[in-house]
């Protein structure tokens, strides 16, 4: 059924394209096709040690496909790592489409077709076991994203995406070619890398290529533009699902193709190879700078975009440190980020669907109007801020523990302070959009959108109680790379330094909440409307001139301090690079003067140079 899945995706995308005029039917077809990876996921579950009832997997899927395509080989094979990331993508994808069924109206067929192609590419990337297959599917994924970005009609988004997409593709291609040159094979399984500087350069290029997709600074420039100018369901999948593929690739190439001893050849710092340490430092910087930039945004989507960048920085830290603890933390963080960021982007989409606004300063008070959207977003925000009442904390905790275990004195404080910074922008979303003065008289989001959001919230709650289940499915990955899995039971994670018992936290929280509730319910209360508010003793009557919503320039003092350093820093740098290229371009254009005599002289000069070079000299 594996090959048929790919065909189903291609045929499905053509069908939905044909159903362009019937968005609802197109949505149904797209969702039906999108369930196939989910079935595959369930069928392959024994690979990671899960035993699921057999009736859950309606279809049978091969675990390996291999055939020759022209000169190369196509080798698709499921691995625990692939399964883990497929879990993230395959669960998010149908829900995102479900959300889109009520969200996307304009040219819906094109949207679903591109989305299906995106998933087709990702599915192939996760299964690919050789570089040709990997690259083909990677680029299919990449350009179908471009098709979706084009729908945003935004110049900066398109230009930055295609420019950085090409950069990423070419870095990958260059890196693959170096690996091929050194090993003589394209198959991951047959590669035996020797530790030479050239190989290291190749691996670095590949990691840099993936860093573009993972929006690691300073290669993140495309992300805010794309995230803020595309349709929300797609952005939810891009940020939640597709950006993880960059980190999938990093893990695959850093620990599957290359190994820790390979990197350790060039020396280690506190037990971590310098390469990994550099990645961790870049990740920490990304986490911090992304957070600072997120705090300064007013556009909800840009805020979430920078938040994505910041949160994915943590994943890079985990991959960089590369101990079992850190890798587990990175995977867990990737999982959390998938779900909470998808929920947040979808909630932003639902808010936009009802109010038509993106600016935080123009929204407000939706918490009472859209309570279910608010609650879903609230859970997601708790997870984002890693508050220990969602699964968000366990991942960060693992990463912190890993950093402390290696004695990282300078990376850990940056990680922690970025975590605190997350509170700031998390509260900005909460206050600006959902709390404060009600300014839009709107209804709750449609049912399809709510269902999509709430199903995505579910894992955050489940893995809060049982973080061990995530560790269960990450353990096979670590074993595959020859590492010792992290000790855990379903609800206790134990490291060398400390333990984290989720049940204790939850029970204590329930207990204290119960106490507080008793204390609180002791006295009756009276609910007064929002307008009955202390403001110079008088609620404003004319809303057009007076606003009680303090959400514009919310962190202005913060911007005074940090704005000068961080705003547009990276973009400036890339603009200088582009300006350099355009300077060269002007030079090249000056060759074509448009004068026939010049061109004739070129020919004659060229002739004379050749003659002179070869014959006379």
């Amino acid at each position: 059924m594996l090959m048929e899945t790919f065909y189903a995706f291609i045929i499905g995308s053509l069908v939905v394209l044909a159903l362009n005029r019937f968005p609802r039917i197109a949505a149904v077809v797209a969702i039906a096709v999108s369930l196939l990876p989910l079935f595959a996921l369930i069928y392959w579950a024994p690979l990671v040690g899960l035993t699921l009832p057999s009736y859950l997997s309606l279809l049978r899927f091969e675990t390996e496909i291999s055939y020759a395509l022209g000169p190369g080989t196509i080798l698709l094979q499921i691995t625990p790592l692939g399964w883990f990331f497929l879990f993230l993508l395959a669960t998010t994808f149908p829900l995102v489409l479900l959300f889109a069924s009520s969200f996307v109206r304009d040219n819906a067929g094109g949207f679903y077709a591109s989305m299906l192609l995106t998933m087709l590419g990702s599915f192939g990337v996760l299964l690919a076991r050789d570089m040709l297959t990997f690259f083909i599917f990677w680029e299919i994924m990449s350009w179908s994203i471009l098709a979706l970005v084009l729908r945003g009609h935004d110049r900066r988004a398109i230009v930055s995406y295609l420019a950085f997409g090409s950069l990423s593709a070419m870095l990958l291609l260059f890196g693959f070619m170096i690996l091929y040159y050194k090993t003589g094979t394209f198959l991951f399984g047959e590669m035996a890398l020797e530790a030479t500087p050239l190989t290291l350069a190749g691996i670095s290029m590949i990691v840099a290529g993936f860093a573009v997709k993972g929006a690691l600074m300073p290669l993140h420039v495309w992300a805010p533009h794309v995230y803020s100018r595309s349709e929300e369901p797609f952005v939810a999948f891009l940020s939640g699902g597709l950006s993880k593929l960059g980190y999938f690739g990093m893990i695959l190439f850093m620990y599957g193709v290359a190994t820790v001893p390979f990197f350790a050849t060039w020396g280690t710092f506190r037990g971590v190879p310098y390469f990994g340490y550099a990645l961790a430092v870049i990740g920490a910087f990304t986490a911090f700078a992304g957070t600072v930039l997120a705090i300064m945004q007013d556009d909800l989507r840009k805020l979430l975009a920078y938040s994505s960048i910041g949160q994915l920085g943590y994943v890079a830290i985990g991959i960089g440190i590369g101990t079992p603890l850190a890798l587990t933390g990175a995977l867990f963080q990737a999982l959390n980020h998938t779900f909470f960021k998808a929920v947040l982007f979808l909630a932003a989409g639902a808010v936009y669907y009802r109010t038509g606004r993106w600016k935080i300063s123009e929204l407000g008070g939706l918490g009472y109007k859209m309570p279910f959207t608010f609650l879903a977003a609230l859970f997601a925000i708790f997870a984002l801020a890693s508050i220990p009442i969602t699964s968000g904390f366990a991942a960060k905790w693992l990463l912190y523990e890993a950093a402390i275990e290696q004695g990282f004195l300078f990376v850990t404080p940056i990680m922690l302070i970025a975590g605190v910074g997350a509170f700031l922008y998390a509260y900005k979303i909460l206050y600006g959009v959902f709390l404060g003065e009600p300014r839009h008289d709107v209804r709750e989001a449609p049912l399809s959108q709510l269902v999509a959001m709430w199903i995505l919230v579910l894992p955050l709650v489940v893995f809060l109680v049982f973080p061990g289940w995530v560790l269960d499915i990450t353990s096979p990955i670590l074993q595959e790379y020859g590492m010792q899995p992290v000790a855990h039971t379903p609800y206790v994670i134990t490291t060398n330094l400390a333990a984290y018992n989720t049940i204790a936290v939850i029970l204590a929280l329930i207990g204290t909440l119960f106490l507080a509730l008793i204390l609180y319910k002791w006295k009756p209360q009276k609910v007064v409307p929002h307008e009955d508010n202390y403001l110079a003793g008088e609620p404003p009557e004319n809303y057009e001139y007076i606003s009680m919503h303090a959400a514009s320039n919310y962190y202005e003092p913060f911007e005074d301090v940090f704005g000068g350093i961080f705003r547009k820093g990276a973009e400036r740098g890339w603009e200088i690079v582009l300006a350099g290229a355009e300077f060269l371009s002007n030079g090249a254009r000056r060759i074509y003067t448009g004068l026939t005599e010049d061109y004739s002289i070129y020919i004659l000069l060229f002739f004379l140079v050749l003659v002179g070079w070869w014959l006379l000299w």
Partner: protein
Amino acid sequence: MVIEIIEKILLLSGMVALGFIIGMFFNGFARKVTARIHNRVGPPIYQGYLDVFKLFAKKTNISHGWIFDLAALFSVAGIALAFLFLPVAGISLLSTEGDLFLILYLLAIPALGFALGAGASGNPNAAVGIMRALMLMLAYELPLVMVIVAMMVHYNTTSLATLVQMQSNFKWALFVPQFFIGAIIVDMALQGMLMEKPFDIAIAPHEIASGPMVEFGGKHLGALMLYKMMAIVVETTLFVDLFLGGGVVLSVEQYGWIAYLVNFLVWFALITFVFFLALLINAVFPRFRIEQALKFYWKYDALAALLLLIWVYAGVSI
């Protein structure tokens, strides 16, 4: 088994109650101390109990909806939760189930819950106050976490209970030269944590009408006061656990219940002392603007913490 669980629950509830009682005492204590420095008589030392009682005895309690109510619930529950995960006077009730990172994040539950309710009131003063409080948090957390990370790496543990255990027999971190500096840095951060002057811009009564609390009255304000009072206990205990051995002076194995009593009294004396220091600073300083506070913490405090990190880095090798 059942008896054990009930015992544990009772113990935990007792601990929470104790925390609140001490917190309320601290309120009166603080006002008394400040009044004496101002050459006033000041309220009676039990004033905190009176205030909380009065607030809960108010006849009408105005709320702005269910999100507003979450504030009171989450702030009280969250701070109690954080207290339970701290080793108090060497008694670790739940502190072995989590570690210092957990406590740092648990401290965010009441803060965010409080912010949630304050924001839900729709009052711009509350929003501005929350903004300042969050920025202040960002400001003081940097030196704080730097010192904490240095301690974690130095002692090679992240568990606060283990940290307290390692400091028993008066091997306090305060007596280690680098962490003596660390204690000073964290004490400055503590001033911001407690929101005492010069870092009380977030709740400046004359400027933004007491900031986040602006819409709270009656039992809501009572709950918030409980949170604030308990927060004093939690934060000072954190300091004492980090640097002063958690107040453990006698070993329980050797002296039995007397040890508990003595340790407890020492712990109480120490947190009172730490709080007293903060009060002294509070009583004589004007307040910083928020960006000044941010610059103060990130320039001077964090710089000192950075030097500390380098010092520890030079001394530690793995």
